């Protein structure tokens, strides 16, 4: 198949960028989208041109490294699929494909399609962890967890932190990401120790990083490659309200 690529080229965060056109011919429809970009880059290097920078690592859809906008959609047109798991058969012969980096003020462009998602790391380090004794992994059944909670926590924990939610949101809100982390940990007994401070600290860090607020449009869940649901945002809000009320009660004592 032949495709016409339009790719956002930007040399660095401080330089301005623009869209450049590239044409690839005789592309096997069964290669992955990133393999297609590899082919383009090999071609560019051979022509002594600057290859397109894009983030990738595991190429198995679980690391959260990859991700950019394909025709205005984070991770492209296929539901619940990261861009590394997307194949060229999802497109038609002679398709125009526009590639842009994730757009958000809190995700500055490093180069081309690669953006700086350090803001997510800051949110995680402000509360996305549990206090646990180091050493050997304990016996799995030493803490019993109801199936219902284990399943829900598992669904929340599926978030790979790729940033598609921020890119999809018209406000560049990081609520889906933050809420998935909060819900995941607050649903499990191991997460209870920090539960009260976790949510307020993570929300404060999220605000400081310049992410917008959630206006409950649901665009994030629609584009999430791991199908993280809106229920997580409701859980974060529940946690936020209860931790705030607990904070007030504690002060009065």
């Amino acid at each position, binding site marked *: 198949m032949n495709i016409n690529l339009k790719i956002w080229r930007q040399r660095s965060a401080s330089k301005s960028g623009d869209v450049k056109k590239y044409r690839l011919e005789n592309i096997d429809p069964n290669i992955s989208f990133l393999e297609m970009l590899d082919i383009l880059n090999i071609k560019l290097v051979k022509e002594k041109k600057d290859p397109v920078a894009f983030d990738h690592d595991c190429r198995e859809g679980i690391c959260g490294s990859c991700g950019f906008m394909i025709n205005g959609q984070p991770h492209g047109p296929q539901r619940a699929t990261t861009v590394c798991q997307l194949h060229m058969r999802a497109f038609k012969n002679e398709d125009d494909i*526009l590639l842009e980096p994730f757009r958000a003020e809190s995700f500055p462009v490093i180069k081309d399609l690669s953006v700086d998602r350090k803001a997510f790391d800051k949110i995680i380090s402000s509360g996305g962890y549990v206090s646990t004794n180091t050493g050997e992994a304990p016996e799995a059944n030493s803490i019993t967890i109801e199936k219902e909670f284990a399943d829900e926590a598992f669904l929340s924990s599926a978030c790979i932190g790729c940033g598609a939610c921020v890119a999809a949101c*018209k406000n560049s809100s990081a609520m889906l990401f933050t809420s998935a982390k909060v819900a995941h940990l607050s649903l499990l007994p191991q997460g209870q120790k920090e539960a009260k401070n976790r949510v307020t600290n993570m929300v*404060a860090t999220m605000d400081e990083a310049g992410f917008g607020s959630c206006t409950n*449009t649901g665009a994030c869940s629609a*584009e999430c490659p791991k199908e993280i649901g809106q229920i997580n945002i409701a859980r974060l809000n529940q946690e936020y309200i209860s931790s705030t009320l607990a*904070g007030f009660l504690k002060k009065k004592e």
Partner: protein
Amino acid sequence: MSIIKLLTSSVGRKILMAITGLSLSLFMAFHLFGNLFLFVGEAAFNEYVNKLHKLGFLIRIAEFFLVLFVGSHAYSGILLWIKNRKAKKVVSSYSRDNTSGAAKSAAFTGSVVFIFLATHWSTFWYKFNFDLQGMSYYYVVTESSVGFGSPAVSIFYIIAIALLGYHLKHGIASAGQTLGIVGTKYEKTYNNVAAIFWFWIPLGFISIPVWFGFLVRIL
């Protein structure tokens, strides 16, 4: 966590918007209850308003809170709107949108409702309280030039209330999410009650200008 920190965080502001918004929706139901006396008859409506006026001081306290709630709802809304605009300066050049119309237009419908409230206070509220000029309350609403005697007022009223309903369609659902009701066993009941507030109550308000402004004159 201090109350200031709570109210200035993004989630805190949303909670404030949810609580004030839901309170104002409840007031709307009470307001409609009074308005429906118009259909009972002139004497019944006038008597109802007189009874309210006799409460005097209590009404002033309620009005103070209403203004406070409208003000803080609008204030938080505007601040969040500014923050959200700042967070996304560059949008994709590929136009694609999966956001519902009600959610996207909440700031716009809210602004129209605010203008409507300002005119509502400066006309109906002011007349009822300070400037009756010997007219009955019923007459002010149904016949006077600030009321449904003027087709322009009736049309603006109908449009503004319809937009208010649309505002509430997103607003009440959004408040359920912000207050963490979504995902609990109360979600279904909440959504059913929400439909009363965003559809049936605005329809009740609209029925008044439709009847007194137009139908009663044609029939």
